[in-house]
């Protein structure tokens, strides 16, 4: 158990170091998120009421897209330079390696968005409580996006049309996360209970954490053949 944890940390740390080496990658995900969110008022017009209503949806969709944007690189760099072959040959469980990579991906492309959310939420004039729930929902939901996304990334490895094909595969699968996430915020602004939405998101998170690493590992083995 302990050994597995060590391995997980090692893999995650490696990916984080790599991400920090190319700091541009982390920043572009974040900037992309901020830009997409800020573009909306420009496209839709400045009516505060409508903007407030749109805010959770826009933030969630942008987060979904931002994490999609960085998914392409999740395995493809390792694939192109041969590291992935070495990972398949590692005398440890591939699922754990994959989980480590998922964790690193979330820390680079999910966590910053969560931290950025309050600023953007206030831009849209969201009430404070709603912003809190939005953050919580993103905190629970973005890891699921990374995990489901990893399956797609593994399946589309080495294929042309990678990025777009990837989103085609992954976006439909991510819809429940999106709906529960925005649902929670919608509930709190309507004065209803939001805990059921959040616990459903939590359930999705647990489910994803249990199954997706294994599925993604299988997908990798298939793609490497």
């Amino acid at each position: 158990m302990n050994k597995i944890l060590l391995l997980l940390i090692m893999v995650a740390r490696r990916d984080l170091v790599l991400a920090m080496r190319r700091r541009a990658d982390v920043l572009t995900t974040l900037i992309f998120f901020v830009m997409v969110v800020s573009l909306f008022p420009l496209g839709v017009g400045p009516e505060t009421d409508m903007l407030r209503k749109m805010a959770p949806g826009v933030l969630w969709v942008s987060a979904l897209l931002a994490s999609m944007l960085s998914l392409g690189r999740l395995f493809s760099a390792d694939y192109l330079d041969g590291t992935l072959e070495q990972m398949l040959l590692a005398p440890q469980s591939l699922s754990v390696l994959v989980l480590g990579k998922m964790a690193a991906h979330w820390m680079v492309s999910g966590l910053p968005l969560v931290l950025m959310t309050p600023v953007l939420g206030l831009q849209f004039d969201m009430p404070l409580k709603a912003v809190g729930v939005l953050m919580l929902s993103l905190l629970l939901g973005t890891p699921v996006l990374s995990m489901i996304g990893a399956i797609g990334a593994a399946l589309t490895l080495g294929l042309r049309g990678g990025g777009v094909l990837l989103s085609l595969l992954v976006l439909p699968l991510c819809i429940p996360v999106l709906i529960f996430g925005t649902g929670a915020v919608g509930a709190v602004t309507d004065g209803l209970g939001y805990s059921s939405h959040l616990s459903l998101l939590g359930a999705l998170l647990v489910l994803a954490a249990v199954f997706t690493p294994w599925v993604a590992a299988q997908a990798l083995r298939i793609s490497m053949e």
Partner: protein
Amino acid sequence: MAINWFKYSAPTMFYPLAGKLIPWFAVSSAILFVAGLYLGFVVAPSDATQGEFYRIIYIHVPTSILSMFLYLVMAGYAALGLIFNTRLSAMMASAIAPTGALFSFIALWTGALWGKPMWGTWWVWDARLTSELILLFLYLGFISLHASIDDPRRADRAAALLAIVGSVNVPIIYFSVKWWNTLHQGSTIKFSGTSMQVTMQHAMFTMLAACWLYAAAVVLSRVRSIILERERHTKWIAELSEVQS
């Protein structure tokens, strides 16, 4: 005596069997289509509230149901192929996908056409509609992934994995969408309360059977082509009469 089910899971046996079945399916499907249309447009009375527009139901509901059913069948075959490494199941899965996608397209199209007179708009973001749209995306994802991978064995396995993940997700999608939607909008325009008339039911089941048979015929015919393509280096293909002529 037990029937050897695995006998027909070999392409060698399945290919001629499918060849024999296709005409039967095709002909009975055509007959049922004609009968269903007759029942639906001539025998069945017009609806009290919807007038003639309701007659879209005879094509809309069968295609909607089949689009969902075919996804399950496809995922089932894909799983079989992945687990037992049987060649035929994977071929079946990739043969079903286009038909399923077309059925969901027709369901969307006829639904939209029905929506215009009933709701005054082509499209609303209703639970059923949205999940049907997502189903279409899932089909398209399967097809695109399969088409993007050159090596057919690898393509089969990758697409199978996707189909399985998708089939786990379909119920989650359905319920999440339904729940999301009911926050805003009550159950709207279905046949509220009124149980369907018997002739209408007959017409609909006839059409459903017709669509089902049609799908079977098309899928079998497609799978035969796939078998030919994949096994073209084997001897039994070279000995087929249609190949030699």
